[in-house]
């Protein structure tokens, strides 16, 4: 029995200092699931308030806070970290690497996200959460103290996100196993490449926009002071230059997960691999040229609106390529409808519905009618919940055995799937009509007898179904940890490299670096009658990075500095940045050569020896 990365005795210190990408993935996963639950609870509160006309379950201000934090939490603190969890868990395994390029930075990225999310959410207890919507438009946002928490929390977690993106890209560019050419990489790895590039070029404008907001609120800058010659539309532009790529950087990894899962459950190679890669890159590229479709109603004029409308519709082409490729992959395959498969298959129509309403919204003339109504809410929930969340569930059931060595329960999983599917469509399908019937978004209540009452009630009932589904998921995770069925190395008869190593993998993933001889390298070796991969090297000592507590303290410093800014305390700012600075200094002057470990089966005198 090989020793896995999980075999070490549990200790908190180990988790705080870990630089193992699998453990960092796990940290991202549980933090992400936690915020998914928080955001879900907020959603439930929203739907309870809107269940009946003139309801007084939440007052207007509380509603706005809950609504704002729902969007912010789900996008930045749930979806992003959950996808980062998969990237951390899976990408190094898929490219045959033992680690990531910058393990220290990887850990720092996680802790920045962690403290940023904590800071933003602490606003609930410190005088009120942000309440200007997740877009936080100036000048509205300038009126609220909560905005400071929004700005600083996102600034900190955003910096962490950018670091992680750089780490993933460098890992994929420099650490692939021999033979793993770019055009042999699994689709999930490819989507990580493109999503990371989107992060690098989209989160940086967000950083800029947040700085502008911060300076305006804290240092009395005049960017948005129209009387002094400022301009509020500038904020909208910068925000959406970030915002649209943001939605794509979330959905592309979801596409990647679905591509891998569909190929695996169909027992067939992915149809049109090259066109899939091309479509992924193209979507990322076009994603930067469409931002103004969120601003059709601002008054940019018909020419600008048409250009951005047409550019937006173009995105439908590569997206359509993907949809057809998934369908063609399944045709003629032996499709296994396990839980991962069910989620992956139901992803397709859900996402297509969201894509079609997207193209409708892109018709700028029609968008004057749709804009700021529940139609938009229905659109983006079909792509985000029907798309991203279902993909995350599919990925969870698919990779869980590899990461934790246990199979999630299939019966509970299927119950969850059906509850979720029904709930999701109940909640959001009717919202298309609500929007067309004129119900505006971001309102905390409405008058009865405008034809919206039943639809709102139905929509809220759906939310309870989804809640039940998520509770089943939590139960499933607990049951599986307690007494789940042990996973074999290759439970799905998989195709990619991660299935060629034990479940869960050893700390160093690959005792010997494999040679990649084809797309779907593991499937290829199996078809050649091989029981294991071909190797590029003999068994030898393995070089691994040292664990470190510095990333956590460094991120903690920014957390303190964040409160310093919020409460205008220069002492807090200097203390916080001082802590961060000292950590950077220590990191910079201390040599860190890593350590050497001995893989299973390599016989040496005795024990593990460390050397520089």
């Amino acid at each position, binding site marked *: 029995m090989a020793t896995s990365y999980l075999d070490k005795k549990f200790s908190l210190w180990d988790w705080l200092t870990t630089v193992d990408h699998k453990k960092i993935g796990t940290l991202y996963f549980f933090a992400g699931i936690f915020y998914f639950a928080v955001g879900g609870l907020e959603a439930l509160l929203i739907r309870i308030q809107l269940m009946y006309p003139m309801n007084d379950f939440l007052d207007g201000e509380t509603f706005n806070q809950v609504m704002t934090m729902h969007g912010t939490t789900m996008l930045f603190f749930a979806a992003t970290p959950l996808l980062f969890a998969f990237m951390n868990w899976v990408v190094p395994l898929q490219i045959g690497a033992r680690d990531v390029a*910058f393990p220290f930075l990887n850990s720092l990225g996680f802790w920045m996200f962690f403290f940023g999310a904590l800071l933003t959410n602490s606003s609930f207890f410190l005088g009120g959460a942000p309440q200007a919507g997740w877009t936080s438009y100036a000048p509205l946002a300038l009126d609220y103290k909560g905005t400071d928490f929004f700005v600083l929390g996102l600034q900190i977690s955003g910096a962490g996100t950018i670091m992680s993106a750089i780490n993933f*890209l460098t890992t994929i560019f420099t650490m692939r196993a021999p033979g793993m050419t770019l055009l042999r990489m699994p689709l999930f790895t490819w989507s990580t490449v493109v999503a990371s590039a989107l992060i690098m070029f989209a989160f*940086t404008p967000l950083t800029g926009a947040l700085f502008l907001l911060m*300076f305006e609120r804290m240092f*009395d*800058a005049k*960017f948005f002071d129209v009387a002094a010659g*400022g301009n509020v539309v500038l904020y909208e532009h910068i925000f959406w230059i970030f915002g649209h790529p943001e939605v794509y950087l979330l959905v592309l990894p979801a596409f990647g997960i679905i591509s891998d899962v569909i190929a695996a459950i169909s027992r067939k190679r992915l149809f049109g691999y090259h066109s899939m890669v091309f479509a992924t890159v193209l979507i990322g590229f076009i994603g930067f040229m469409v931002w103004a479709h969120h601003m059709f109603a601002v008054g940019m004029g018909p020419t600008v609106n048409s250009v951005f409308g047409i550019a937006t519709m173009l995105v439908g082409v590569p997206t359509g390529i993907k949809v057809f490729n998934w369908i063609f992959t399944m045709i003629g395959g032996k499709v296994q409808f396990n839980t991962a498969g069910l989620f992956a298959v139901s992803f397709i129509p859900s996402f297509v519905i969201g894509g079609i309403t997207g193209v409708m919204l892109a018709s700028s003339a029609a968008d004057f009618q749709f804009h700021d109504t529940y139609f938009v809410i229905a659109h983006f929930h079909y792509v985000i919940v029907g798309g991203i969340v279902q993909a995350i569930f599919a990925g969870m059931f698919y990779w869980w055995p590899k990461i934790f060595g246990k199979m999630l329960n299939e019966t509970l999983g299927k119950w969850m799937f059906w509850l979720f599917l029904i709930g999701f469509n109940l909640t959001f399908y009717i919202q298309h009509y609500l929007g067309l019937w004129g119900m505006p978004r971001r309102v905390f209540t409405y008058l009865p007898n405008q034809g919206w009452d039943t639809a709102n009630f139905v929509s809220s009932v759906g939310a309870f179904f989804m809640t039940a589904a998520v509770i089943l998921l939590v139960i499933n995770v607990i049951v599986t940890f307690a007494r789940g069925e042990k996973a074999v190395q290759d439970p799905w008869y998989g195709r990619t490299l991660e299935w060629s190593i034990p479940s869960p993998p050893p700390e160093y993933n690959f005792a010997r670096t494999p040679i990649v001889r084809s797309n779907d390298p593991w499937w290829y070796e199996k078809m050649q009658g091989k029981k294991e991969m071909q190797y590029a090297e003999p068994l030898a000592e393995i070089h691994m990075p040292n664990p470190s507590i510095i990333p956590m303290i460094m991120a903690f410093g920014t957390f303190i500095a964040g409160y310093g800014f919020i409460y205008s305390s220069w002492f807090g700012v200097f203390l916080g940045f001082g802590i961060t600075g000292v950590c950077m200094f220590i990191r910079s002057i201390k040599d860190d050569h890593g350590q050497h470990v001995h893989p299973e089966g390599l016989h040496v005198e005795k024990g593990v020896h460390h050397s520089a």
Partner: protein
Amino acid sequence: MSTLDFKANGLPAHPEKATQEGRAKLVGFWLYMSAEAVLFATFFGTFMTFRNSVNGGPTGAELFAIPMVFTATAILLVSSLTSVFAIMAMQRNLASKMRFWFAVTVLLGASFLGLEVYEFVEYVHEGHTFTSSPFGSSFYTLVGFHGAHVLFGVLWISTLLLRNINRPIDTYVAPKYYVASLYWHFVDLVWVFIFTIVYLFGMVG
């Protein structure tokens, strides 16, 4: 370890790229710089939006003085050159020569900063402050952000120099020096854009 992989002059031709860690560092750093370029682009865009929104205060044409800005530019460009000398020395394994050129780079960077502080104080006296107008806010955001980068670079290179004052060049430290010099070039390049877009365009109005 490949640290002891001696070739000509006792070092591989490109000591910064001789190890996997070194190569990763370079790739990662290029990515970092491209991300930062977009952040600067955001501030450039903001500045260009507001370059004429002076809110009754002094305009760029009234504020900017050629000799000072020109001196600052010359200082920074020369410091880029000296950091190139430092890297050339590093690649030839001439440690003390490398240190000398890096020290010159740091001094030039510090004098640039001194000049910038002087310049800002001057502007504030003339009524061009962070809060006086959108022009002021966006000017100090952009130029100040660049200044903060110069400051960081000065501290970074100084730390490297002091930490390794007695240490020969090897493949462990070479990527560190190299990356610091890349950063320095990046900061200088941004300044070239600031010089053109903020000052030259500003002076013609």
